């Protein structure tokens, strides 16, 4: 039995090394790379475990009100839409990203903008399975102007200028400062409940790091994690370069 198991493990280990060879690599590199590969496999497993744990969350709180947002509409230019109307038939999950762009801000948050730059490309695919929209506290025309100039054409933008959504769902603090936050809502039997939020935003960051609360869907930092330079200590994305 034991030897059988050992054989299986050895086979698995051999498989790990199959193609993973690069021109001119040294045995020292291969040894360290194989060790790293194991760590990467563990990390992949952990990502799935966390997702599983997330899916097992008990039902969240029901939404206190059916918030009314402004969004763009053909012909009339602007229309009001309720949160409950953001659920397309057959899609019971709604993701709302709170974009830091209030009337008090001269420019939208460059970090959020960089996140949305990438989400924008994923939106047509994401939209096949779930409902996705971006909420900001600016009046709709201001929000749409920025989106158009940025070249965003896939995402659905909602203005929360006239409702308390941001305040209630932690997209805004007591003083009216905007916070970046991703909220997920679920509709079951006509009832809409909160499912999950990127609450890492409100945890203490690791030393020398940011909260990394939406790291998982922000390719920029993850790509820098693949480089010898890493994320860097004092570089942040800007609106333009």
């Amino acid at each position: 039995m034991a030897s059988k198991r050992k054989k299986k493990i050895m086979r698995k280990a051999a498989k790990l090394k199959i193609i993973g060879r690069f021109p001119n690599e040294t045995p020292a590199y291969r040894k360290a790379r194989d060790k790293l590969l194991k760590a990467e496999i563990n990390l992949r497993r952990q990502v799935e475990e966390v997702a599983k744990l997330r899916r097992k969350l008990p039902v969240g709180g029901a939404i206190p009100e059916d918030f009314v947002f402004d969004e763009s509409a053909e012909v009339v230019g602007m229309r009001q839409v309720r949160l409950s109307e953001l659920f397309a038939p057959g899609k019971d999950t709604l993701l709302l990203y709170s974009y830091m762009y209030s009337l008090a801000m001269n420019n939208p948050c460059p970090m959020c903008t960089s996140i949305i730059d990438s989400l924008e490309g994923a939106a047509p695919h994401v939209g096949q399975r779930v409902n996705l929209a971006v909420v900001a506290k600016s009046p709709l025309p201001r929000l749409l102007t920025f989106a158009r100039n940025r070249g965003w054409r896939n995402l659905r933008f909602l203005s929360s200028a006239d409702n308390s959504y941001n305040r209630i769902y932690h997209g805004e603090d007591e003083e009216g400062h905007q916070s970046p936050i991703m909220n997920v809502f679920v509709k079951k039997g006509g009832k809409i409940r909160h499912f999950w939020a990127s609450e890492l935003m409100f945890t203490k960051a690791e030393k020398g790091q940011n909260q990394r609360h939406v790291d998982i869907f922000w390719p920029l930092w993850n790509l820098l994690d693949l480089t010898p330079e890493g994320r860097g200590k004092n570089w942040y994305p800007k609106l333009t370069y």
Partner: protein
Amino acid sequence: MAAKARKKNTAARKKTASRKKPPRRAKPKAPKRAAQAKAPKRSTRAKKRKASKAISAVSYPGETPAYRRARDKLLKAEMELRRHTEAVAVQRRKLPQGGELLEDYLFEESDKAGGVRSVRISELFAPDKHTLVLYNFMFGPAMQRACPSCTAMLDALDGNAKHISQRVNLAVVARSPLPRILSHARDRGWYGLRFLSSAGNSYNRDYHGEDAKGSQQPMLNVFVKRGDTIRHFWGSEIAFAPPEKGQDSRHVDFLFPLWSVFDITPDGRGKDWHPRLSYI
């Protein structure tokens, strides 16, 4: 200073103890002192635990205590994942230097006037940027159309390309002739990424963007230039490791927001859904 004084004190006490009492009685005293020293440590840890609970106590309208308990538990798991992600990145940065570049490959790319120009891999390094990230896009001449999964990944990466390019060199390599790649890129509305055709070189084959039979493989490679020497730094080798049961290899998961977004939903990634080139 204080520690030294304490040590001295302890030593002095030990001396008196051994003078006054037989060594057999002096021995049990030592663990007792150790226990006393540990006591405040335990209480600090308890305090830390309490504080961490307070930190995660953002509440949502109508949430039940059961939800909060489970959410706090999940939050701890998310923090652990955040730590582990960083630990893996740290380990990656400590890799010994990789193999020297096999040859200074010649790619084709579009020039500023819209024509075609040849560019060497060594020329892809901007003067102040020593890292080059090359993604192997599965779009070979034998393929009727580009890989839909790679395309979905690039849809999102394109939006981050101008940010990424501030820090490192980034390009996408495909085996198709350049006009075919550029036409697909234009159709997708990609404007941030740099596209290279490897139709005339063996880059794909040498760096695992292609298997022995000529089938294209998705692969992300990172190269580093030190002095005049270009070396391989890292490749998304997890693509070749056995996947977890019922999963894909997820080798560029962290650059692919689509799947991570599904990971924050109750229905997850799904078993049989894959992105397509179009949904009409």
